[in-house]
């Protein structure tokens, strides 16, 4: 597979890649849901107005292309004096957000993190919510967070770990796999339409 890098936005570590004539915007976290397809007009617009710089580099995979986008982004961060990596504690995040957002965060812990098997993140966030001043002033928040925490422990204990791969199903490696599968599917359709009698294996 040859993936062509057509444009990139260095401050955003975003890239516009071309594969088989189709354009795709790759942006952090380089997940399928954050990598929409683009038209040629979108590409022209990105170059004309959105700070994208034209590129013309070939890569053997999306992974390599994304590594390149990350690398030039890191060089940029060093030059502007921004940290190139770091971590985020659950306490800091909970202390920073608007109290009205807390319900949304709890919902997302239940519906996003737990389903993705990200139990450590879910527990850290829920414990931070329970310990936060917000829980003291609003007991409903505490009750809700506690209920979620019980649920997280229960799910973890029951080993419902179908999404153990920490959401890797959405990561760029799978984006690549998916595109390959789509390509195989297209070839299969073509073969079928030509009334060929053999079947193409998914691993070919």
């Amino acid at each position: 597979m040859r993936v062509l890098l057509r444009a990139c936005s260095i401050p955003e570590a975003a890239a516009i890649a071309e594969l088989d004539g189709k354009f795709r915007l790759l942006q952090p976290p380089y997940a399928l849901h954050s990598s929409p397809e683009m038209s040629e007009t979108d590409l022209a617009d990105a170059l004309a107005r959105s700070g994208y710089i034209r590129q013309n580099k070939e890569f053997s995979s999306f992974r390599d292309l994304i590594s390149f986008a990350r690398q030039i982004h890191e060089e940029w961060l060093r030059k502007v004096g921004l940290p190139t990596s770091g971590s985020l504690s659950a306490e800091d995040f909970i202390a920073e957000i608007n109290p009205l957002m807390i319900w949304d965060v709890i919902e997302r812990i239940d519906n996003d993190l737990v389903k993705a098997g990200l139990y450590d993140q879910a527990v850290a966030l829920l414990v931070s919510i329970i310990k936060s001043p917000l829980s003291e002033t609003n007991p409903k928040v505490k009750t809700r967070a506690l209920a979620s925490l019980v649920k997280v422990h229960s799910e973890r204990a029951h080993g419902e770990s179908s999404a153990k791969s920490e959401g890797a199903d959405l990561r760029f490696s799978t984006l690549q796999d998916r595109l390959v599968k789509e390509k195989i599917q297209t070839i299969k359709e073509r073969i079928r339409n030509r009334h060929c009698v053999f079947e193409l294996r998914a691993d070919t």
Partner: protein
Amino acid sequence: VIDLAQAAAGNASRIESNFRELIEERSAEDGATIVTFSEWVLEVCRVSINVKLYVVFDLINNGRYLNMYDAAMQYAEVLGTSREEILRSWLRAFFDRRIAFDRAFKDGEELIYGALTAGSGGLREYDPYCLTLSKDFHATAAALAYLPGDSVNICFSAHGEFDEGGTCAMLAPDSHRHMLAACKNWRGAITSAKADWPALMNQKATYFEALFIGSVTLTNVDRIQMLQSEYERMISLVLRSVGRRIESAEHTLVYCFRSLLVAARNQQINLEIVS
């Protein structure tokens, strides 16, 4: 050299007479709808600028929005290259047009480009964050005018030459923005429900460019709208990043998004999520 404010003011009476003619030529019912539409534009629509997260981050941290030339200068200093090189890489095919346009105006390098939009994330096709300027922004701007479309397209001939006469004739002053909008978008206004009018103002094909010389700061940014899809991307990224080492690209986003949340919590900015 064109004086933006002066050129726009010179068109006021013509825009007004075009507007009156339009109403007189239409049926009473359509005329009334067009007047209602123009009043709605006056009341609801604001100058807005669609930007990326790192531009919002810059605004929060530096207190001031940088126009294209200022931003290019900042990039050039950091990257050790020339401002022109940065501008060329950004503008590519539009470089000559944008430079020709700006140079035609007095203090053209101070121009800031926005749009006259009706909330709902503004020109969301461009970027997911919409800085909406306060209603009284015009009072503080050194110059503010509107064009019925994208200046790099409508102000140039088919051969790419800047049309100075045509450009001057199209400029509308702030006081007549609603009439300009009605004269251009009246068909859409009379054929669609009022609830759909924002779409007329907020899409590439029918939008109005706002160009001005002035300072965009946190004090005159009324609100920052963020697209729901962008919010989903960011909040998901942040929650999944808790307690683990975050790589460069994701870290920058998390860093910028957190500063946005903190600014909203501290009421430095008014943040809205729009679907």
